[in-house]
């Protein structure tokens, strides 16, 4: 039988990075069970890290370099998605703040820096309640990926950190990229901008260090309300059940683990969903193995044991 004409370049069968360890130089391989165990405060086994994404979507998406998840979907003007997202910043986030106060939880708020200028009252309410602010770009047009010029990326990172510092009096030490999307140079740009940890790489369940010194605190996208409720179309009750199952499993692994609860005001804080989260937080906060912690507290505790 005659073969079709060959079209695949011979280099397609060359593997220049087929070697021990990774095919990149960003961080080293290690298996979680082989590392020195981590112990959280008061010897709790599971650090429950609540992280809120606080997002403002311009009604004019720029798509530079890509359109963020949750962004505008219809022809201009997309009132539907602009307002449904902004609902989170007016109503939903206050339901979350109340839920955290009732459960005694201090959370991390991954915050678009323009929120601090547009809604200073909201950011003051978050900071005065003792929550942590993590830098989350400028607004939801501030996406990063290969293709964004390096100067523009550097300026975006600086602008986000500067705006949040001006508004809160504290320069954020943590960074979450929109959609967790980075370019090849993002870890170096973040490190040079003075960022201590990013939350973008979902390959682990403990913090680890990049070769350049930046720490990665994994914010598992699989456990997020966006993934479970918006993408996989499951109910808030199912979400809560899944978090309970995750907590139970992590608690059984005996050494220090992290359960990240990544929630979005316009998703989880709707009237018919918020109750499931309120009950979950009260229940988890009461568990004897649980340490309810911010990202910064987890990083402090982990780093002190390295």
């Amino acid at each position, binding site marked *: 039988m005659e073969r079709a004409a060959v079209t*695949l370049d011979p280099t*397609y069968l060359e593997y220049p990075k087929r070697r021990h360890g990774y095919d990149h130089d960003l961080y080293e391989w290690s298996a979680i069970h082989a590392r020195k165990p981590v112990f959280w405060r008061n010897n709790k086994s599971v650090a429950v890290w609540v992280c809120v994404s606080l997002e403002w979507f311009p009604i004019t998406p720029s798509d530079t370099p890509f359109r963020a998840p949750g962004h505008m979907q219809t022809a201009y003007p997309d009132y539907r998605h602009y307002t449904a997202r902004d609902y989170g910043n007016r109503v939903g986030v206050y339901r979350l703040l109340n839920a955290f106060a009732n459960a005694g939880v201090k959370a991390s708020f991954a915050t678009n820096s323009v929120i601090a200028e547009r809604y200073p009252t909201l950011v003051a309410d978050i900071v005065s309640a003792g929550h942590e602010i993590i830098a989350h770009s400028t607004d939801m047009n501030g996406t990063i990926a290969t293709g964004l010029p390096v100067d523009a990326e550097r300026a975006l990172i600086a602008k986000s950190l500067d705006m949040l510092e001006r508004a809160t009096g504290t320069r954020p030490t943590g960074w979450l990229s929109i959609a*967790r999307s980075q*370019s090849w140079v993002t870890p170096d740009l973040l490190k040079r901008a003075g960022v201590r940890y990013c939350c973008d*790489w979902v390959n682990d*369940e403990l913090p680890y260090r990049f070769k350049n010194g930046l720490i990665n605190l994994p914010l598992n996208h699989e456990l997020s309300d966006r993934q479970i409720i918006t*993408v996989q179309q499951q109910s808030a009750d199912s979400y809560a059940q899944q*978090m309970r*199952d995750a907590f139970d499993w992590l608690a059984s692994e005996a050494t220090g683990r992290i359960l990240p609860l990544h929630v979005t005001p316009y998703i989880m804080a709707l009237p018919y969903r918020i109750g499931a989260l309120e009950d979950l937080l009260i229940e988890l906060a009461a568990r004897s193995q649980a340490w309810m912690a911010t990202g910064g507290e987890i990083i402090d505790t982990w780093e002190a044991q390295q």
Partner: protein
Amino acid sequence: MHEGAPDPGLYDFSPYRDRKRIVWPGGKSCAVWVAPNLEYYEVDPPPHPKRKAWARPHPDVVGYSHRDHSNRVSHWRMADVMSKHGFPGSVSLSVALCQHHPEVVADAKVRGWEFFSHGIYNTRYTYDMSEEQERAIIEDSIATVREATGQTIRGWLAPALTHTAHTLDLIAEYGLEYTCDLYHDDQVQPVKTATGKLVSIPYSLEVNDHYGFFIYNMSPREYAETLVRQYERLADEGGTVMCIPLHAYLIGQPHRIGPFEEALRYIAADGRAWLTKAGDIVDAWNAQQ
């Protein structure tokens, strides 16, 4: 196969009704095998004209690091649960994992698992390969697995399920005995090849954890219930094969592993399941032909 023909000519029609009864060792009615995909995805693979490796510009941080979770965290979580309930693995292996993370391959070997090839990387696709190129990846697979584990591979699951019209002929020519790429049956079936003897063993797309979680959007508990129902029906019918194809970065997530363990506990306790490996299923089927 008949290249370009509407019917690829992979097998003859064989109705499920009135087939010769297959009985598994020990009188068991359903052969259950678990197929963990131990994979390596490259962060910056070369482009292929027919398929993009990543949805986003490289580095696709979530795509890559999600899969890297297998090799840092969830492989051991998944493997421990399997070992605890007596399920050996038949590994669908990106053979370059033997170079990148031999620690993962060694763990599977120590557990007594079987290895078959899933290509070099799951980011290198077979479409458009010349016969020489395809021979090269088969020979690479045989040599790499032999050197890393001492085993001679007996089966093939095409990398990222990408094929040419000649893949099945070639793997049979090299002495491989089973393919996991055909989904037309719940029993082992003969496959037509130019030379050599090849059978299809039921792998499964439908109860693959990837399909469960990302095609059917199941919750972890729904997926576990799906495995139990799949097993119950196949065990009732008898002479059947049930595969549970897994990816540690999916099934080994903390919210999924607990319900999955309950499904394994149920199947192991039922009494009708032969918990075994792909090669043993093929041997037992061949012995009854």
